[in-house]
């Protein structure tokens, strides 16, 4: 009997959903404080700028993928950069996911321990989440795709509904002055939103699954929709945080989104302490991001070392991920340093490695074309 879970084709729309599922995750809780502290009142502008910047990065990846319709980055990187250079690029690519995963695990462990299970050690929370995510990542792509699609409609709807209750405490004047004249700060803030949008790098792995006849324009259009949705979602998060808490207050709380929702009182109802409801809706969102990223890491290793199955690699990565998360858990300085380097590695990959790969691929083609006369 054929393995129905081993899916070899996805539609462009499914690709868009997977990109959203991978990108939107833990960072809606973890990132806003740092962004608001850096850009202050103009944080919402940086979110839009970030959306545009990383959409451009995603388009560059689409363009690059289109040059090699049957291959992932793992196959064509050595052809472009040579064996050593290709290895560096592949390690860089996998390191991106690894650093994000350990950052997310340690952040999520801290939040869940502090707000939900104060007697459970964060090590246990992380381990439990890691086990569940690993179980999902051990499945074939068809299952992961299905999980992503279900979560897209269920978890995000729940999350948005709970989050929207905070509108009750929204003070429009906290958003004023609306426009920042510090263009440089807004643009640098745009780059610092990378942790929010990160995950779109999976395009370099998934593009061969999309039907070859799908044009670049169609893919760019779908990706535009995905980035539009993500930008709107992140805008909703950042605008509500500033509108409810003010910039100064948001700077002083580690997880402003939770403080926002904690302040909501629904008059005439027995529902209270909405931060617990938000966390319950948030955990599945984090799960989809982490499961997908662990799967991508397994895929990268599988393809690089020419295995036929990604599962041994997923299992081999588990201790590494757990160890990395533990190292960041109790050391805030290490967490901040790793976050900073992850940002550089991520932005460097999108705007250094990818454009360079694209140029090299064009140069190779021109060279081959010239040889053929």
């Amino acid at each position, binding site marked *: 009997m054929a393995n129905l879970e081993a899916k070899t084709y996805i539609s462009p729309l499914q690709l868009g959903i997977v990109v959203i599922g991978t990108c939107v995750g833990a960072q809606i809780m973890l990132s806003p404080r740092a962004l608001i502290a850096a850009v202050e009142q103009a944080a919402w502008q940086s979110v839009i700028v970030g959306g545009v910047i990383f959409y451009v990065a995603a388009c560059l990846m689409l363009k690059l993928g289109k040059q090699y319709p049957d291959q992932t980055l793992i196959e064509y990187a050595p052809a472009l950069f040579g064996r050593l250079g290709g290895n560096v690029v592949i390690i860089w690519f996998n390191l991106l996911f690894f650093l994000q995963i350990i950052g997310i695990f340690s952040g999520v462990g801290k939040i869940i321990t*502090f*707000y*939900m*299970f*104060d*007697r*459970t050690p964060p090590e*246990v929370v992380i381990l439990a989440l890691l086990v569940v995510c690993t179980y999902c990542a051990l499945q074939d792509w068809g299952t992961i795709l299905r999980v992503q699609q279900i979560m897209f409609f269920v978890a995000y709807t729940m999350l948005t509904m709970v989050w929207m209750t905070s509108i009750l405490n929204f003070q429009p*004047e906290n958003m*004023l*002055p609306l426009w920042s004249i510090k263009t440089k700060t807004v643009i640098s803030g745009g780059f610092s939103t990378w942790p929010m949008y990160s995950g779109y790098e999976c395009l370099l792995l998934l593009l061969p699954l999309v039907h070859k006849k799908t044009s670049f324009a169609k893919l760019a259009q779908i990706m535009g929709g995905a980035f539009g949705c993500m930008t709107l979602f992140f805008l909703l998060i950042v605008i509500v945080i500033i509108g409810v*808490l*003010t910039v*100064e*207050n948001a*700077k*002083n709380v580690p997880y402003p989104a939770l*403080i926002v929702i*904690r*302040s909501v*009182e629904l008059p005439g109802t027995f529902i*209270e*302490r909405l931060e617990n409801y938000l966390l319950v809706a948030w955990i599945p969102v984090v799960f989809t991001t982490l499961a997908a990223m662990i799967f991508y890491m397994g895929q990268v290793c599988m393809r690089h070392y020419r295995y036929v199955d990604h599962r041994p690699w997923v299992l081999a990565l588990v201790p590494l991920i757990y160890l990395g998360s533990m190292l960041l858990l109790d050391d805030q300085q290490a967490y901040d340093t790793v976050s900073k380097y992850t940002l550089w590695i991520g932005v460097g990959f999108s705007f250094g490695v990818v454009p360079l790969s694209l140029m090299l691929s064009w140069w190779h083609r021109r060279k081959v074309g010239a040889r053929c006369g």
Partner: protein
Amino acid sequence: MDKKNVFGCVILICLSILIAGCWDRRELQDRNFILAVGIDMADVHTPIETFTQPHGSKRYRLSLQILKLGAGGDGKEKSKTYVISNTGDSFFEMVRDMLGQTSKSLWFEHVQVIIISEAVLRQTGLGELLDFFKRDSEMRSRMHVYVTSGVAKSLLEYIPPNKEPGGIYLSNIVDLHVKNVHVAGKRTDLASLALYSDNNANLVVSRIEMVDKVVKLGGLAIFKKDKFIGYVDEDAVAGIKYMFGSEKSAIVTIPCPDHSDHQVIFELFRHDTRLRPHVDGDTIYFTLDINMYGNIGELQGDIALDNTMDPQYVNNLESAFADEIKRTVLYSQQIIQKKMRVDILNLFATKLKAYEPDTWAKVKDQWDEIYPDIPLIISVNVSIRNIGSHK
């Protein structure tokens, strides 16, 4: 069943034993629900009540009002709560030491109100006192904070006449602020105080008093940043609410324009209030435009002499009510801006920052000195929509 399946079943059973239950479970019957917290200066204490403290001094008395959980009894029991207290320096340390006075763990998730005595506020800033409550994840963001000139512990021991648990009763009083213009309750809870404190604003907290077993909420305690500087009365609170536009309803009483021994009462139903900054060269001034809509709610005096169906009479009343609102705002402005010299909750500073950011950038460092001399131009318009269901 082959060996593989048996092994699988054993693993499943073992796992279900391991994962059953929850590390974080706390049974309902094992909890003491705290409903109210009182902070006083440490007075004379019996040694058994407190603890040996190696560092600091016994500065505060922390009192906790705990809900009595158990069988209903014979109905003769007067109070649904009881109070325990402790003295010390750190609130957290006192709370943990108070576990020596209870048989169940203390549970702060249902705290409704924190009452702080004026004596404590004369010594310590509000921010320092509330830090424990802001920091702990167990606390509610919207718990109300009150100041009393008396003893906070006495208010915790108060038995409400309707037999409600004390903390809930005390908390619910302020929730009626939307109908009571003498009580400012909108931005005086823990989350709002944390928010304004982070914005370096001058804070305000509702005042609660108990005299002869009568508890009453009214007036405001005013803080310069977080240092207590005094109280304002109910009339000033009304003026402050008119400035903020935070009232949902209000009762305005004036002598009748035609017969000064009569009293006419206006009930506010709706308003449109706009406080706007203006910059003219180096001069900053604010305009406050208030449009109010409501009904005549009561007439005291010989009603045969006051024809509320006469449009001219109603017009005269509208002008008189507008003058009264203006007087109230000017009264509170006089106290807050001129006498106490505080921009409460940074109302004016926030407007200037929002609508005139360039000017704000120039004056923000000297705002405390500039603010008391900034003019406020007030314009009030009152529309009487209805005279009630009788002439």
